[in-house]
């Protein structure tokens, strides 16, 4: 069975939360009386989540902001020296560091390449799933979701092994491909993880492989909501598939594409686990993206939690700016009722 959104409990096309339907004044009175009697109940129900999120998500964010203006390092952690406010020293050190700009550029270019690739692959597979018969569609989407469910750690070691210089299938295949396809004997023993460009090429394949199923399934769910009559009338008007996509499918799915675009940017700009493993854990400084650079500055001996926090704050602010767009798009779609 193909999973669609409509008609299942997860779909929020239901009665707006909390607004009771006007089914007669008695029921409305009862609802009002209920609300009055239970004025504090919602707060009590929210309390555990607010405490958990507050202590483990919001408080660390405040702390990072605080640390980024302090000289927080090993002596301060062990208590040998006190923490001191250092103004914007961590930020000015960061912004004048060429390694910061390199890692920033790597994150930016990576997102600029991977986001469109993921969206394109996902959309094409979503369109294909929509055209397939129910059984075939279920089979293909199941396999795609297996890629999505593969843990980042497993996916990373699998792709590193596929691209291994000794015994990896990628080099083996490339070495046997004809030269007009870019193959040739020089690929034998080629290392994909020793230089930034090959490492990020491998990472691109890995992240697209893990990322496209979510896009495909979401696009498929959106396609199911487009009325078939729209397509029929377009076909009667004599539009080809390309024209129909841009005239009907794209405008109808535009809100979904916007959300997928913003989510993909947030995920791919901040990708950590896969990048950390493919670039050989810590140490290859010319292969750091922004997140790994922040992590390295914070934790590699001698640790500098202050500079690391400044970098983490920069990363957080960049992602929050994109998140504002995501929240606005969600609100406009009626996610908050």
């Amino acid at each position: 069975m193909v999973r669609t959104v409509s008609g299942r409990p997860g779909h929020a096309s239901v009665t707006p939360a909390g607004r009771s339907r006007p089914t007669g004044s008695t029921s409305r009175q009862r609802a009002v009386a209920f609300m009055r009697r239970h004025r504090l109940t919602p707060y009590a129900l929210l309390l555990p989540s607010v405490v958990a999120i507050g202590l483990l998500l919001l408080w660390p964010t405040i702390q990072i902001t605080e640390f980024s203006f302090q000289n927080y390092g090993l002596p301060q952690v062990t208590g040998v020296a006190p923490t001191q406010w250092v103004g914007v020293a961590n930020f000015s050190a960061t912004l004048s560091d060429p390694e910061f700009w390199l890692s920033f550029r790597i994150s930016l270019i990576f997102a600029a390449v991977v986001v469109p690739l993921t969206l394109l692959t996902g959309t094409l597979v979503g369109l294909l799933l929509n055209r397939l018969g129910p059984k075939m569609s279920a089979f293909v989407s199941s396999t795609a979701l297996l890629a999505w469910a593969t843990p980042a750690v497993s996916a990373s070691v699998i792709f590193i092994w596929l691209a291994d210089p000794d015994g990896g299938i990628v080099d083996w295949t490339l070495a046997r491909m004809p030269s007009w396809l870019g193959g040739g004997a020089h690929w034998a023993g080629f290392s994909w993880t020793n230089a930034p460009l090959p490492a990020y090429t491998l990472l691109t394949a890995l992240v697209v492989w893990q990322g496209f199923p979510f896009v495909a399934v979401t696009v498929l769910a959106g396609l199911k909501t487009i009325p078939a009559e729209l397509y029929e009338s377009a076909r009667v008007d004599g539009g080809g598939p390309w024209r129909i996509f841009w005239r009907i499918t794209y405008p109808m799915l535009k809100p979904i594409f916007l959300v997928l675009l913003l989510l993909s940017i947030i995920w791919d700009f901040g990708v950590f686990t896969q990048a950390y493993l493919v670039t050989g854990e810590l140490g290859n400084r010319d292969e750091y993206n922004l997140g790994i650079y922040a992590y390295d500055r914070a934790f590699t001996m001698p640790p500098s939690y202050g500079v690391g926090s400044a970098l983490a704050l920069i990363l957080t602010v960049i992602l929050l700016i994109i998140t504002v767009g995501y929240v606005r798009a969600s609100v406009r779609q009626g996610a908050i009722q």
Partner: protein
Amino acid sequence: MRLRSRTLRRAGLNALGVLVALVTLFPILWMVSTAFKPAREIYSLTPHPLPAHPTLGNFRSVIDGKVIGLPYWNFLKNSLFVTLVSVVASTLIALLAAIAVARFRFRFRTSYLIMLLIVQMLPQQAMVIALFLDFRSLGLLDNLIGLILVYTAFSLPVTIWMLHNFVAAVPREMEEAAAIDGAGPMRIFWRIMLPLVAPGLVATSVFAFIFAWNEFIFALTFLGTDSAKFTLPIYVTYFYGRGTVNWGAIMAASTLFTIPVMTFFLIVQRRMTTGLVAGAVKG
């Protein structure tokens, strides 16, 4: 004539579908196949998709713990403990919050919902710096309880969001009818709300399960020194970082780590994707 062209088009689409499925499955199949290959087939000059002489040697070497000093079961136990406790905690907390958001109107309700959307995007590699220092002073490093706390809290924004859509989908009229029949709030919760949101609870707990089972950054940072406390993701990368890379062992460890979560996912896939897509399509 028309019928033939339709059959042809269908066959072409199906062929394309099979191709997409094969390309997608290939890395997973290659992992499993490598895990069963003896060393000389892994580094063979003519690699085959399937092992010619399948062996359990790789699995044996990671399960008995020759490389890492402790058997696989130790790490499986750690991962299961951390994952199950955080799934139960996060699902319970999320259910309470979801009922509040879906069933009540109150001040700060919209702010709360927007807060959920925002904190969901906070980068873990940023949070980990502050949490590492906090947990260091609380003595929660090299401690599975620390991971449970983090996994519970970090899955909450998504689990609450998913679950509040499910709770909102339960018709109010049913609760009202029960109330008219004289059922108290507890009874309404156990008899009406809980059975009807059960599919939602399954979906959200699968999400929380996958998140905790797969999580890497916090485990890497918090479980630095005590290998007995490693969870499975750290256990898998342990084989990767040491000297001569033994791909047979890594793929065996990776298979042992991946297959349980995939099996679990395939069983509940239908509800899972519904919930996820609902979250995405509706924001």
